[in-house]
């Protein structure tokens, strides 16, 4: 049941417990209990909405930064990752395979703000060897939701 609840919530986190219960043929109490457990165990960490900021007045600039680091003895990449992801400007931080190590999403109000953040805060961390910043120009899809393309129901009435 928990897997199904996670699937449902990952697509629509505003759905009520009652509704989930009906969808899964369970009681509301069972669903509530399962969700509380997953929250306590840090399986469910939050319920954010997917927003197309471009359609709002709010200025949001996003950049993805490739960060190469020297791993530290005993701690590998975790310690430096921690130093990076603690900044509220960092929206995501992943350890990667391939030609760089950390892939960091940074958000700010202007390109300058993001660039300065990278130059002053990320690049100066001791074990960071290099950074490469890529600004997002346009978002097409996020969290499985496409920003532009909304499928309309164009089914015609047929007799069957």
């Amino acid at each position, binding site marked *: 049941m928990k897997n199904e609840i996670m699937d449902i919530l990952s697509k629509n986190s505003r759905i009520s417990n009652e509704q989930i219960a009906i969808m899964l043929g369970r009681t509301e109490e069972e669903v509530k209990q399962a969700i509380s457990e997953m929250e306590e165990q840090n399986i469910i960490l939050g319920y954010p909405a997917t927003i197309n900021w471009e359609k709002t007045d709010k200025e949001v600039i996003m950049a993805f930064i490739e960060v190469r680091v020297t791993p530290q003895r005993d701690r590998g990449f975790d310690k430096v990752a921690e130093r990076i992801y603690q900044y509220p400007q960092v929206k995501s931080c992943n350890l990667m395979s391939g030609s760089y190590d950390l892939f960091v999403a940074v958000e700010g109000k202007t390109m300058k703000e993001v660039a300065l953040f990278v130059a002053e805060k990320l690049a100066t961390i001791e074990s960071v060897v290099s950074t490469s910043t890529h600004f997002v120009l346009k978002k097409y899809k996020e969290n499985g939701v496409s920003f532009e393309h909304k499928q309309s*129901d164009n*089914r015609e*009435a047929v007799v069957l």
Partner: protein
Amino acid sequence: MNVGKMIAPHIRNVAPSGIRKYFDLINEMKDAISLGIGEPDFVTPWRIREEGIYSLEKGYTHYSSNAGYIELRREICNYMKRRCNLEYNAESEVIVTVGGSEAIDLAIRTIVTRGDEVVIPEPSFVAYKGCTLFAGAVPVPIELKAGDQFRLRRKDLEKAVTDKTKIVIIAYPNNPTGAIMNYEDYLEIVDFLKDKDIIIISDELYAELTYTGKHVSIANFEEMKDRTIVVNGFSKAFAMTGWRIGYACGNKEIIGQMKKIHQYAIMCAPTTAQYAAMEALRNCDDDVAEMVAEYNHRRRVVLDGFRKAGLDCFEPLGAFYVFPDIRKTGLSSDEFCERLLLEERVLAVPGSAFGDCGEGFIRATYATSMDNLIEAIRRNERFVNKL
């Protein structure tokens, strides 16, 4: 010349579908919600669409062999083995058709001649009766009962089968009721049919949409396989209705004769759709599973909604329909649907459209978005409460 008089009586006398008027009404309404259309709301998974596009880019725009590309027929055989535990020879026991509908028409025309009887358990998909009449044969309806959860029973068959019966149609998971038949349900049917000179057309278009356990085909019974034409297709399982692609599997003599009609009337199924269908069978089990999970959620929501509105409704375990009993409202199914549409702007289809014994029921499909369903259920409840 009176042109109208030239039309063959056995064509003219087949009544057009009674649900047309609802579609005309709903076309004029802006905020109506349709639970009327028996087709997936999902768009065909992108990788299938993309494969169709790619085949066009490569210039694959010619006829295929009449029976369909052999690669596709091999994939169909793999699929039937993998999903239904049925083995067929790709060379001789499979034909690719223009949707399951063509396969049904071919199968009926191949078996019956004037005066033969085709047993059709009702309520049922409307095409069986039409195709039977067009073939000059006689449809013999069986009235399935809500009390039997709309499963086919031996006692019903015993009453309907005569010396003239050439075909029995079996269609589970069922449109319009959402009923399924499991292994045990088939035992008494198989026992009754196994020694008779009767061909079974088993319409299994909704096989993937089985919400409990695994789909069972009557062809899974050893003694029935050779006398059963299994009709299946891509429309429902892979959300490919507009591609018009389906298939039939069965005894090679029957398939060979079906191929003859098909090659003169149709030539071959559309080849873009055939390429897309290969991709569907090779790589899309996960897409199907995702759609089935979503349908299953909606199924529970819509069933719960009709029951909370005070209507009796048996639990449908297949397809994407619920078939609530509206008799306690005192309205006929036609009146119920018309008023539900006019007063609350929700379209369901009267059960009577699927055979006389569908009177007293309505068919609602949950192949529509969850938001639509929840709103439709709310409106339906408001409607039932004021009756």
